[in-house]
């Protein structure tokens, strides 16, 4: 056992050097001051956090949360049936099904985002097709709006929802459904009362993965949203790269991280109280 503990040393060292220390630096910088030329000087201030409370930034923040929430809900609505269908395939077709879900990962994310641009732009695949079919006279503005950003996010994050849900459905004891049927539950009722509650951990895991990932997403809004649609990820990226305002960028990052943590905690709390049986009992009675 004593020797076994040594085995975690490399990982601990790695994490403290490349995760804990940088995180600490970000926290420190978020309380620092910026000179007019973009230099960071360590003079303590709360100004960076106060600046975040300006309506412009609050608005961006809220629209980021909203986009993340909608992305999560839609990936759930699309991902659950897909995961369920794959889990119910004959065993030899399940693996190919999962691989098809994961195939997009084999191509660089940036390239995939630009592929969407080619599909959606005014002279793109969709518009050209519709024009040639005579269904429209003017190209549709499919790109560079909030819907395009949403589409790109859902496309990018759907696998993160499908995989955990698939695992939880696949692991569920199938005899429970036989028992439900034996006790008089038609298939839909058995799904609602047995399968769905028992696969909630998978749904929770998928939702957290998708939600957190979409909070920090900046490539998709950049490429598919154009200048119109800035999310918090783009804002942070700008502070570090173009605006050269590291302290403000750091403050934004910390706020985002804290918020994400809080949401995860809330989600688990909610899930636990549901598993605690309180809501079950109410529903059953």
């Amino acid at each position, binding site marked *: 056992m004593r020797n076994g503990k040594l085995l975690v040393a490399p990982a601990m060292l790695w994490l403290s050097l490349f995760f804990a220390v940088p995180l600490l630096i970000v926290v420190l910088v978020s309380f620092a001051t910026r000179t007019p030329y973009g230099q960071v000087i360590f003079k303590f201030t709360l100004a960076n956090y106060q600046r975040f409370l300006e309506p412009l930034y609050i608005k961006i923040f809220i629209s980021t949360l909203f986009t993340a929430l909608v992305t999560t809900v839609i990936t759930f609505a699309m991902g659950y049936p897909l995961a369920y269908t794959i889990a119910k395939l004959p065993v030899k077709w399940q693996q190919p099904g999962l691989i098809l879900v994961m195939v997009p990962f084999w191509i660089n994310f940036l390239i995939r985002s630009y592929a969407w641009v080619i599909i959606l732009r005014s002279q793109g695949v969709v518009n050209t097709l519709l024009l040639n079919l005579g269904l429209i006279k003017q190209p549709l503005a499919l790109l560079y709006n909030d819907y395009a950003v949403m589409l790109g996010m859902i496309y990018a994050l759907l696998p993160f929802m499908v995989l955990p849900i698939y695992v939880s459905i696949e692991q569920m*004891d199938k*005899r*429970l459904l*036989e*028992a*439900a*049927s*034996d*006790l*008089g*539950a*038609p298939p839909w*009722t058995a799904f609602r*009362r*047995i399968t769905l*509650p*028992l696969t909630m951990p998978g749904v929770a895991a998928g939702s957290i993965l998708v939600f957190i990932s979409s909070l920090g997403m900046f490539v998709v809004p950049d490429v598919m949203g154009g200048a119109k649609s800035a999310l918090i990820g783009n804002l942070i990226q700008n502070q570090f790269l173009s605006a050269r305002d590291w302290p403000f960028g750091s403050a934004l990052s910390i706020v985002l991280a804290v918020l994400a943590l809080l949401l995860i905690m809330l989600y688990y709390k909610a899930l636990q109280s549901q*598993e605690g*049986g309180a809501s*079950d*009992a109410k529903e*059953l*009675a």
Partner: protein
Amino acid sequence: MKEMVRLEGITKKFGDNVIIPNINLTIGDGEFLTLLGPSGCGKTTLLRMIAGLETPTVGKVYLDNQDVTSLAPYKRDVNMVFQNYALFPHMNVEENIRFGLMMKKVPKDEQQERIDQVLYLTQLEELRTRRPAQMSGGQQQRVAIARALVNNPKVLLLDEPLGALDYQLRKKMQLELKNLQRGLGLTFIYVTHDQEEALTMSDRIVVMNAGQIEQDDSPDKIYHHPSSKFVARFIGESNFFDLADGTALAVRPEKLNLCLEADSSTEHPEPAYYGTVVDVVFYGTIDKVFVRLDNSNQTVVAYQYFDDVKRWQQDERVGIWWNKRDEVKVKK
């Protein structure tokens, strides 16, 4: 007796694999019938066809004189106790039991009444808010039975319900189940591979082998008058003495008597066989004496109680005899 379940010309195939070639079976109302056989003999498949969880490839299933062959499980008036209980892990005891009543839209106050009744019957009143994971195997077993019983099914199907319990608890639950069935006058169809369990609990035993019925009789008949070598071997231990006409005589080890080779007393019949003791194994209440018969490779076993003549030693020469009424002629 009124008929409750009738299986007519049942054949079941999985792909090219014939599990059950052809079975006809009628089960009476209030009967405790056990399907007994080794694993893979088709007994569970047969049970699942009555529950509706499998559909026969050919043949009909009647429940209370109604053809239910193609009726979905959730529309059948039978309930099953599953081998590993299949309790809903996200519901407590009471919610598990309430599930069936809710599905049948039983009024709420009646639900509560029936739940309380069945909790009392299965001695689970103290545990009603426990989750399955917080209970022992024996307690989970009771919940599984309560969950099925509360629906007042026409037939209760039990698929090796005691298989996961330890020996002591199993013995206790056997008696409890039997009393429950008698008290309620319910029809039980019970699947097990444990012959002792079958003998203890059943009104009638159907011994199955390779998807076919070997013997369908009372426990007493099954034990004392097995119709085939398979049944005699499966139910308890048995010795077989092959006859010239292709049949064999089956004699239970407790009915086999040993005497010294030299002993030609007239108090017992002339020994039919002679042999050498190869092993004596102590079993608490008995000694199991293994004897190799002369002129063959066959070894037979005799149970000797300690108040019998003597305790046998290895390498002793013995004669083997039995009373005519203790032998059963069986097919090979």
